[in-house]
């Protein structure tokens, strides 16, 4: 549905997007994850035809973005970072105008506007001027605007930014409901959002794709080792060497720099469960075992790891599926 091939965007000497390639299948919800300034917005702007890339090609809904931009744009709905509202128009006037320029036939326009307002829950603000809307409503009118011509492809730049927790939930439900009929690309820097709404994640950093996978696989893949959290009530200086001596353990370090008393992070090879051995070693030395639990790498940690360090080669090769 969307195919991006080696897109690069340079502003003068700054490279905002560097050789990005990916595919999105029909009906899929793809999450675009990255720290601020990673190139998410630039990539989305290129996909919507707002600006051309310096190099590379893109195909949206079967139309080449650079040879048939009008056809591609007819099939794309876009919610920019700031909803593009005209302050002096009412919500209905605004949606009617958008429907006009998106090419919705005049007969269907009224029905479409009503349907979309219903769906995004802005129907109670129909005659309110856009300048008087709260942030949450502005965002939802922005979403209504993107849906007005029932596009095959939806590109949403941080759709939940500025919403309160209840609205965030509603918006996520709405987006999940739209998947299947629509192909959706959404960007965010909120990680749980990706885990909850997206089937696939692209992590982008400094303009480069650093990882592409499902949220679950990404978490598992990046976990190079099993890590246990161990807390003891005694042992002192001897504790760390004792733990390190257990077969299968590869590294022992203090768990937290602030509470150094007897808390350790114990890493072992992947697939080796060393809990039994740790417990036995501690108990035979007569120390008290206060806590022993596996540490799971959350998506946050994955994200930090991929965006701050070099990532393992096996993940990198996933860039061009």
């Amino acid at each position: 549905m969307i195919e991006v091939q080696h897109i690069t965007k340079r502003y003068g000497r700054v490279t905002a997007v560097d050789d990005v390639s990916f595919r999105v299948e029909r009906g899929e919800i793809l999450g675009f994850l990255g720290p601020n300034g990673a190139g998410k917005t630039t990539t989305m702007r290129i996909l919507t035809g707002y600006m051309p890339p310096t190099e590379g090609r893109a195909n949206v809904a079967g139309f080449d973005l650079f040879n048939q931009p009008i056809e591609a744009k007819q099939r794309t709905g876009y919610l920019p970072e700031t909803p593009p509202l005209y302050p002096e128009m009412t919500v209905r006037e605004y949606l009617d105008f958008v429907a006009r320029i998106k090419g919705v036939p005049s007969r269907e326009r009224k029905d479409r506007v009503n349907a979309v307002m219903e769906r995004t829950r802005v129907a109670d603000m129909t005659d309110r001027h856009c300048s008087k809307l709260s942030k949450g409503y502005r965002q939802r009118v922005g979403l209504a605007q993107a849906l007005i011509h029932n596009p095959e492809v939806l590109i949403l730049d941080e759709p939940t930014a500025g919403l309160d927790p209840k609205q965030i939930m509603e918006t996520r439900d709405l987006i999940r409901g739209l998947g299947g009929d629509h192909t959706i690309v959404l960007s965010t820097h909120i990680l749980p959002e990706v885990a909850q709404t997206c089937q696939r994640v692209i992590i982008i950093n400094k303009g480069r794709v650093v990882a592409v996978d499902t949220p679950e696989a990404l978490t598992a893949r990046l976990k190079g080792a099993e890590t246990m959290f161990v807390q003891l009530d005694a042992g002192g200086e001897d504790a760390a060497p004792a733990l390190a001596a257990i077969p299968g353990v590869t590294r022992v370090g203090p768990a937290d720099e602030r509470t150094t008393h007897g808390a350790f992070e114990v890493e072992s090879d992947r697939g080796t469960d060393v809990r039994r051995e740790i417990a036995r070693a501690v108990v035979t030395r007569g120390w008290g075992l206060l806590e022993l639990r596996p540490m799971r790498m959350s998506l946050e940690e994955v994200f930090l790891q991929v965006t701050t360090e070099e990532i393992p080669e096996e993940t990198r090769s996933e860039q061009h599926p």
Partner: protein
Amino acid sequence: MSSIRNILAIADKELRSTFASPIAYIIIGLFALLFGWFFYVFLTIFVRQSEQMMQFGGGASPNVNQQMIRYVLQNAAIIILFVMPMITMRTYSEEKRSGTIELLLTSPLTDFQIIIGKFLGALGLYVAMLFVTLLYMSILFVYGNPEWRPVAAGYLGLILMGGCFISVGLLISSLTKNQIVAGFLTFAVFLMLWVISWIGESSGPTARAVVTYLSIVDHFEDFARGVIDTKHVIYALRHAGRRQRRRRARDPGCDQLPRIQAQQAVGSDRGQTVLVVGPDPKSAAGASEARADQGVRRLRRLRPLPRAAR
């Protein structure tokens, strides 16, 4: 068909948003006030002059068109020069600042449709502004007996001149996010295009010709007299083409510009024909015939060689 629909949608939106804000009413109101003041001043002068002429028993009766309406319209052109930046400064700057330009540029619209839509929107407000002044003119028609054709030519001139101003204004507005910057730059450029003719008066004939051609207000002066010179029409139309250039630069795939320029070049060579619509005191007949001759001579030069000669 859909292209016209899109253009109208943009023009309609432009007009609505100006009339939804106080800007439109302030502009129209102030323009009507200033125009009214000049109208009053020149009317008093004209009435005094004709009374004097009647006293001394002059032969020819005074001419409202040449001695009053002409000056009113010329001064209106100057007011427009000051007012126009306020109409055009927000067109693109505001959309860029608020981010709505992203909506327009990601909608299935061509750059051409957006530009023409915005141009027509601004022109609509301008025409509404001129429409109010017809009220003043109607007073002349009720109490006097002016010729209507020179007045119509004068208004045509104002509209064409306004089109030039608008297209320059839109171009400048598309360069910046800041309305104040856009407004001031536009104003400076307009003023430059007006005062440039002052330099022309003291320089050589070539410089004078170039400079007079560039001066927007000079082009308008014939219209104010009631003369429609196609040279001036070409100037206005060429200006309207100018605002395309920036967009083209962004979109190298489009090759329309060279063709437009070529057409204009041919147009301005032919464009020496003069149409006299109303009475012209400076014996327009002689001058215009001379100019027409020049045009014919140039045309001859342009005509392709006969088949035998090739």
